[in-house]
C-alpha cells in the first residue's frame, strides 16, 4: 500500500471513530468523556486531511470539496464500488 492509500485509510479510520462517538452520544448526550473523544478525533482528522492535501492535492469526499477550474472532476473514477488499485 502506497503512502497516499495509507493516509486515506487513516482518515477513514478517524471517520469511523467519529461516527461511533456520534451514535454513542445520541443515547448518552451528557457524557463528557465521549464529547472530549469526539473533539480529539475531529482535530486529528483535520490534521490528517491537511497532511494529505499538502502532499497529494485536494481530498474530495463530497461535492463541496470540488472546486472546478476547467472541468467538473467530481465524476472522475474511481467510484466507491470500483476496486482500488
Amino acid at each position, binding site marked *: 500500500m502506497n503512502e497516499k492509500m495509507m493516509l486515506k*485509510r487513516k482518515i*477513514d479510520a478517524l471517520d*469511523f471513530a467519529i*461516527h*461511533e462517538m*456520534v*451514535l*454513542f452520544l*445520541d*443515547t*448518552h*448526550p451528557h457524557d463528557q468523556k465521549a464529547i472530549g473523544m469526539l473533539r480529539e478525533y475531529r482535530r486529528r482528522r483535520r490534521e490528517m486531511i491537511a497532511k494529505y492535501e499538502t502532499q497529494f492535492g485536494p481530498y*474530495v*469526499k*463530497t*461535492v*463541496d470539496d470540488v472546486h472546478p477550474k476547467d472541468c467538473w472532476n*467530481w465524476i472522475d473514477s474511481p*467510484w*466507491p*464500488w470500483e*476496486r*482500488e*488499485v
Partner: protein
Amino acid sequence: MWQYEKKLQYPVNIKNPNPKLAKIIISQYGGPDGELGASMRYLTQRYGMPYNEVKGILTDVGTEELAHMEMVCAMVYQLTRNLTPEQIKASGFDTYFVDHTASVYPIAASALPWRAEYIQSKGDIIADLHEDLAAEQKARVTYDNLIRLIDDPDVLDPLKFLRQREIVHYQRFGEALRLTTDRLNSKNFYACNPNFDKNCGK
C-alpha cells in the same frame, strides 16, 4: 436531507469474481433481514418518536445502514465482473442473469424481491424499538451464516465488519429502550402510548 460521501464506510476489494457467492450475499441487500430493509425501517420509524435520543439514534443508524447497503452492493458488483457464459451456467447464476444481467437488484438469496412487509412502523415506541432490536439480531445471524459458507478472505473481511456493526447497533437500541422504559415507568400509570396519546404521563 442527505449528502453523499464518495467512499465506502469500510473497503471492499475482491480480487476473484465468484457469482455463486454473489447469489447468497445479495440477501443482505434485498433479503428479509438485509440492509435495504434496515435503512427503510429506521428512517421511517423516526417521525412519531417522542424522545430526541430515539429520533437521533434512528436517524444516524438508518443513515449508516444506507452505507452498508452500498458495501453489500459493491460486493455483489465485484463478485460478478467479467463473467463468461460458461461461468454463469456452471455457477447457477443463470437464473439471476436472465432477468438482471450482471446488474444489482434487491432480492433475497431465495430470489424473492424486496418487500415492504419486511419492515414495520407501528407508531408505538416500545413495539418499534423491540422490532429494531430483533432486526439487528436477525441481520447478525444472517452474517454469521454467510461467514460459515464463505472462505475467500477478501469477502470475509467486509462481512465481519458488517456483522460487528449489527452488535453495536443492538447495543445503542437497547440503550434507547432503557431510556424509554425509565421515562414511561416514572409517570405512565395507565400504560398509554407516548407516540399517540398527547398527554401520556402528564
